[in-house]
């Protein structure tokens, strides 16, 4: 399976895939030209719906359906979420850096379908080079008439503004991103109202992920049906996975969904197996927020719905592989430390709970754990995400808090004896 949608250009032309010249030479902006001159917005939306394209930001919400929620009030906005911050995830970075025109074109197609005249591309603050590339692509697109007034010879106007974040994971959450874009603290908003009704500056707003929109030029070129023919039902199309950790061949891989986890981790052209021939212990299937999978899941299909059935998610597409030498308590501590550090502090359970989890894990790793800490960890988690079920419930405003419980739940579900051994009297410090 070598079907490539998102990375074809950068694979074929690694030296200059980000330039307008190369983009045009490889058929770029033809889809936009066609969309704005030959298709109605409704026809564009129909193609996206027919493609059954699901959002690539983490939640996997059907893109065309989301667009349908846009409230009629104007002005309304399109915001491209390029605040890729989930640990282990670097697929949007590649799309921003290596094929920015593909994103600009996808953004313009979406804007046309939505009747939006102002779009924002919000790029993670640490992504200096990707942001420069996107800004340059936007500038080039303006100069070439693909943005601005009357784009591609049509009567459709679109302005695109590139905005850099300031270094907060929470701003990947769409409502916190909108606050940040408005110049406020990056804190999630209470929903409802949803952004499609009351988003940026209180106006209807659609927020789409970079990867999601990067698919649009291909979908308009080949038709929604062609996209819908790729991969299993519910997980159509290709997907970029950032495979990292203890694999022999870490990297970003674009694959058609539906292959097995064994393929993704072991196939020679993908992860190429666990490093040094060691045994696999566990892996995170979709970013730090996703509960872990273990070797018994290796032959499960890599799809959105099958992974949900296993109590986890494809999330941001970050696959982090842990081999048999991994200290899973230390691994959980690293993850919880990340969430505690990135908690915005707005709501109580996340602000206080994540740091409490962190302190206990630190104590266990330090050799000062108590047997009672295991159930305490679970109950603290339960007070953030009641029932510790999937999809997670939450006492919090946004899913960040429940995300911090994923490593705890994974630890207790798959490795409880290992944790218990650490808290026995005299267990001493590890690592």
């Amino acid at each position: 399976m070598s079907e490539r949608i998102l990375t074809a250009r950068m694979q074929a032309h690694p030296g200059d895939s980000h330039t307008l010249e190369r983009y045009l030479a490889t058929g770029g902006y033809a889809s936009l030209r066609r969309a704005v001159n030959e298709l109605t917005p409704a026809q564009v939306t129909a193609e996206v719906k027919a493609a059954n394209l699901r959002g690539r930001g983490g939640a996997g919400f059907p893109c065309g359906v989301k667009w349908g929620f846009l409230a009629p009030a104007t002005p309304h906005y399109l915001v491209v979420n390029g605040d890729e911050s989930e640990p282990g995830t670097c697929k949007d970075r590649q799309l921003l850096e290596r094929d920015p025109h593909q994103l600009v074109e996808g953004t313009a197609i979406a804007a046309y379908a939505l009747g939006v005249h102002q779009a924002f591309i919000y790029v993670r603050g640490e992504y200096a080079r990707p942001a420069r590339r996107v800004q340059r692509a936007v500038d080039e697109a303006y100069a070439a008439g693909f943005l601005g007034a009357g784009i591609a010879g049509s009567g459709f106007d679109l302005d695109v503004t590139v905005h850099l974040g300031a270094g907060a994971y929470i701003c990947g959450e769409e409502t916190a991103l909108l606050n940040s874009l408005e110049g406020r603290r990056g804190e999630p908003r209470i929903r409802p109202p949803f952004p499609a009704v009351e988003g940026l500056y209180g106006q209807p707003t659609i927020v789409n992920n970079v990867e999601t929109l990067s698919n649009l030029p291909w979908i308009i070129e080949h038709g929604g049906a062609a996209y819908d023919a790729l991969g299993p039902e519910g997980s159509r199309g290709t997907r970029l996975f950032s495979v990292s950790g203890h694999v022999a061949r870490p990297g970003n891989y674009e694959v058609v969904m539906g292959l097995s986890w064994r393929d993704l981790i072991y196939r020679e052209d993908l992860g190429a197996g666990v490093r040094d021939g060691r045994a696999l212990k566990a892996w995170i299937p979709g970013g730090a927020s996703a509960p872990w999978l273990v070797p018994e899941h290796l032959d499960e299909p890599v799809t959105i719905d099958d992974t949900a059935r296993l109590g986890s998610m494809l999330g941001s597409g970050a696959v982090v592989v842990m081999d048999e030498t991994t200290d899973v308590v230390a691994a959980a501590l690293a993850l919880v430390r990340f969430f505690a550090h990135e908690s915005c502090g707005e709501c109580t359970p996340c602000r206080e709970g994540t740091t409490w989890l962190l302190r206990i894990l630190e104590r266990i790793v330090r050799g000062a754990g108590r047997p009672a800490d295991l159930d305490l960890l679970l109950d603290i988690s339960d007070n953030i995400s009641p029932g510790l079920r999937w999809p997670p419930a939450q006492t919090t405003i946004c899913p960040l808090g429940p995300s911090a419980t994923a490593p705890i739940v994974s630890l207790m579900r798959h490795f409880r004896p290992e944790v218990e051994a650490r808290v026995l009297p005299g267990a001493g410090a590890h690592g």
Partner: protein
Amino acid sequence: MAERVTLTIDGRAVEASAGELLIAVAQRAGTYLPRFCWHPRLEPVGMCRQCLVELEGPRGRALTTSCTTRVAEGMVVHTTSEAVRKAQEGVLEYLLVNHPLDCPVCDRGGECPLQDQTIAFGPGESRYVEEKRHFAKPIPISDLVLLDRERCILCARCTRFAEEIAGDPLIHFVSRGNTTQVLTFPGEPFSSYFSGNTVQICPVGALTAVPYRFRARPWDLEAVESTCPHCSVGCRVSLQASANRVVRLLGVDNAHTNQGWLCDKGRFGCEYLASPERLTTPLVRGKDGELHPATWAEALARAAAGLRSVIDGEGADAVAGLGGARSTNEEAYAFGKFLRATVGTGHLDARLGDALSARFLTGLPRRGAIDDLEEAGAVLVWGPDLKEELPVLYLRVRRAATRRGARLVVVHPRATGLDPVADHVLRYRPGEGAEMLRRLSEGEGEAAAARAALEQGPLVAVVGRPGLAEDPRLAEAVAAFAEGFPGARVLPAARRSNLYGALDMGLAPDLLPGRVPAGDLSAREALAERWGGLPGAEGDDAEGIVAGLQEGRIRAVVLLGCDPAADFPDPARAAAALGRAELVVAVDLFLTESSRRAHVVLPALAFGEVEGTVTNLEGRVQKVNRVVPGPGQARPAVEILEDLARLLGHSIGGETAEALAGEIAASPAYVGITWASLSRGEGRDGIRAATPVPYDLPLEAPGEETGEMALHLARVLYDRGTLVRQGQALAGLAGAASLHIHPADAARLGIPEGGTARLSGRSGVSGLPVVLDPSLAPGTVYLPFNLGASVGDGPVVSVEAAP
């Protein structure tokens, strides 16, 4: 009217209006849901997560915050399920993990929502064994407020109040996650006129007030409901005393007036009551020319003899009375009756030459209520800077503009507190108000858009004197203009606390008690009969009385709680006038610029020490109550006046204030407004008095004298007024006098920024520090009133660079 819906809370059917917040609906139905961030007067944010309930939905029950959920038909809510109980306990445990639990040394201990709700809804003990979060504690965030970040539970009530309600976004969340904290900007204190409200609404002891800190424990406090005495908004307060000393005022949520808020002057301005400088004994001027303590009998006899001698020698017309605007209605009524019936003079005034006409202030035909602002489509503010003079009315107008969708037009000679939220701001020079009014009414030039905004009615116009150098009749023409709009209502804006009540009690030469014009002959006759005497002619107002004293026509003056030598627009002239009197009798709390010039000083009881009623700027009559006995031999003013009357062979029937209250409740505007009716049910929120004889507003604005430079003379919240100066907390907040001038004028006149200038009007003052103020109408200088520099109250001045 919103659609009515029925929902189910814990199996009980509950009715509510669609769109109401579930937390409020549940509370009304008897189910109190624990909460920290939610406050009924702030926008909901759902941050603390304490009010979680379960809602039934298509996918089963889900936890959601009741403070962000709007009720809808058929909603099914569970508030006591196992899931809810666990979530509530869980959140409380989280809130406590970093809370220092230093309750024994915390002001909030004993009245703390965190304590109370932990006991009601929280876990018995914490499972937290880690190190708690530490911050330096407490840190001052202003002169009045201290912040303890360890106690803070980050509910954002204070920060939201500062931004949403006060419009002073000076405190913020800083940092994030577990190190989030409330802080000010470096070097920029939380110097808001409303900072004390954050202490009151803080659900823990994170914010404490410097004046109250460690002064009392809640269980020691004796509290009564009363009305704030500092300005004419009439905010409802809880007046709290410990060991016979008023230690704290809290705002009470009166929906009509303050909605729970207070300004810091009101909140912290109670310290004067316990000032060591309070008068505790009568004083009589001796042969050595100094004031000496005396017995009540000596002092009253001296005052009565002095009055008798002037009356007998030069007629009752040689006696005048000033003051009463800081007194209760009963005291003001007693004062009027004493002057008119006992002494027999018509020279009396509760104003000090700084207000508007008495008929305007009491007889406005379309007088509005503060609450009219809630439904206003447009608001016109052409009067004092409300933030400086009537701070809580500023909050209400600000709310109308920012939360209720009203278009706001502000007309003033310089920037006011409302400008940032105004849709249209118009500037004019003092003395040129008539021209500004013509432009506004004709929609000329820059005023066209403002004029159009005013059409977005119903209009509420807040009308008063922008500055003391301007002609007060301008306000009447502005009110007449405003009344021309359909559905318009006018709120008269004069500051001094119970001025409206005093005028309603007839403390003006052209008014009789009950808002009756003194020219009403049948009313005069009836009153003369009831009172056993009334002077035949209308007397002089405050201006006339000061002039009369200067001319020697008036020989004796009785002052009731007023300080014309400081508060008169031209204080030097008033001081000189007092100096010429043969007899000055001052009923006062302190030796002021005026009472120190008196021959007899009679110490009176103050706010919180007497019972009575007061009337606010919308004509709302409210009760004031007594919580402390008062210092030394000080006595209720009503009793003092009755004793004086008796020594003069008369009686005002005022052995007690309550006796006079009965007479007041029989006057035309106050029919049926009794102490009893104000002390029960909705009467506790006050009852608005009627307007029996409407005043015909003049349509023409007065022509005024103008010159090259015009004077804008206006009050600031913290000035050298007695009540500010006599309290530790506020005294230091009053600034020094400075001269504000437009940069273009300064350049033209060669006055450098940071330099000093001489300002000359009727008198002159040198060495005023110069502040460049581009918000001024060019050709105007601004001098804050009562900060120690005065040039009289004429509108025409000159300025020159001078040390």
